[in-house]
């Protein structure tokens, strides 16, 4: 995936997942909306998001190697993270 042109399907899936877990946040969602630091996504919704990201990257994530509040705080950040961590050749 190219960092400057996020995969529109992946973005759609991501927004769908956020909507599914928390319908109240979606009206105001933009690519740079703060998701975690603002408290819009927490607890079970955040955990489901983490599992989805793990599935999309095709690898087990090491919790010591990144800060989710920084790298996953926005839709753009999450898509970028997946792009950087996806195992080469993983269909996603």
């Amino acid at each position, binding site marked *: 995936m190219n960092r400057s042109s996020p995969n529109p399907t992946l973005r759609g899936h991501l927004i769908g997942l956020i909507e599914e877990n928390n319908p109240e946040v979606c009206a105001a969602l933009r690519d740079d909306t703060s998701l975690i630091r603002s*408290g819009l996504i927490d*607890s079970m919704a955040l955990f489901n998001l983490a599992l989805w990201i793990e599935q999309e990257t095709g690898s*087990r994530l*090491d919790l010591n190697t990144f800060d989710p509040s920084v790298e996953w705080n926005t839709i753009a950040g999450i898509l970028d993270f997946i792009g950087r961590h996806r195992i080469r050749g993983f269909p996603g």
Partner: protein
Amino acid sequence: MFDVVPYRPERKAQVAELHSYFWGDIAASAAYLEWKYERNPYLGESPIYLALHDGKPVGMRGMFGSMWEAGSSSQKLLGLHADDLVVAPEYRSRGVVANIMSAAFDDLREKGWEYVFSLSAGAVTRFSSLAMGWRNVGPVGELRRASRRVELLRRLHGTISGMRFFHRYAKDVQSLLGRHLQSDLRGRRTGAAIKVGARVSLWQEPRPEEMARLVERIPYDGRIRHVRDRAYFAWRFQNPVHKYWFLFWEEPDLEGYLVLQEYLPEAMDRSVTHIVDWEASDDRVRAGLLQAALRLGHFPDLRIWSATLPDKTKALLETTGFRSGGGGSGIADQQKYILVKPLQEGTPVKDCVFAGRRLLELSDWDVRMMYSMQG
């Protein structure tokens, strides 16, 4: 947004009701909260933060007092242990947790607290915590010793359930399995001590004074550990939703102990037995206590935290059949982790030091399941 307020005694019944989402028993929750937050040996009353909606608690997080020690002169650090995160089902994924934690951290920071610890978080709470700036020290290294009988019955049940002619026997196997899913300890009702070896006896009550004296007498390497004094032992084993058994090795002074624990509420996994603490004056006593525990009878699933045990003790566990828990890895790893939240914003990792020991470095910890409410 939700209002976040500190707990007040007039909300006791409401909070017990909210907490009962854990195991479905309001009376058990009330007794548990009273023991943990009102009779804490270090703080007396420990803080609980509540998220309110229309004046009713819909979320909570408790912070009970915990006294840690480290270094050659056993320097003490009074900290808070975050636990009991509960959100009413209809309010989940609506920012309640973020609201509570943010208000709690602001309040605790203002009151001068330096660190909050967590040793009991499940996978969901752990991940939420990391996203809120907690630091991950590492996994507790849970080891399990599963009963071969139970494993075989589980496998047999799985196999015959899908078989054309034999599936009718699956119910019988399931019923047989059910009878093996509790340890032989659970049936022991006698209040008196039972001899289980020349020097070892099984008790149902702790001996806080002697246990504390033993801990004090054994050489201490200075790693970060919870203070285990008389007051702590006397309080710790009064947890009303756990049942404890104590193996004591005497010759004639107390030379070692091993503490076993099981859950009481039906909603919790009653097939599991934990070794929550294990202390001995030498390797011979340590090994003897483990052997005595294993001779007590059938344990479907015996578990211990091993991440910070000496290699010799880990080898001893391995030779007696303990294996890595296999609770998965990555985000969904089921085992517990040590988490630390420095309350002063922007504290660099190198500054998270207590008595010369690094709070964020697993090798500087001596952690036992008893320090966590898992045990």
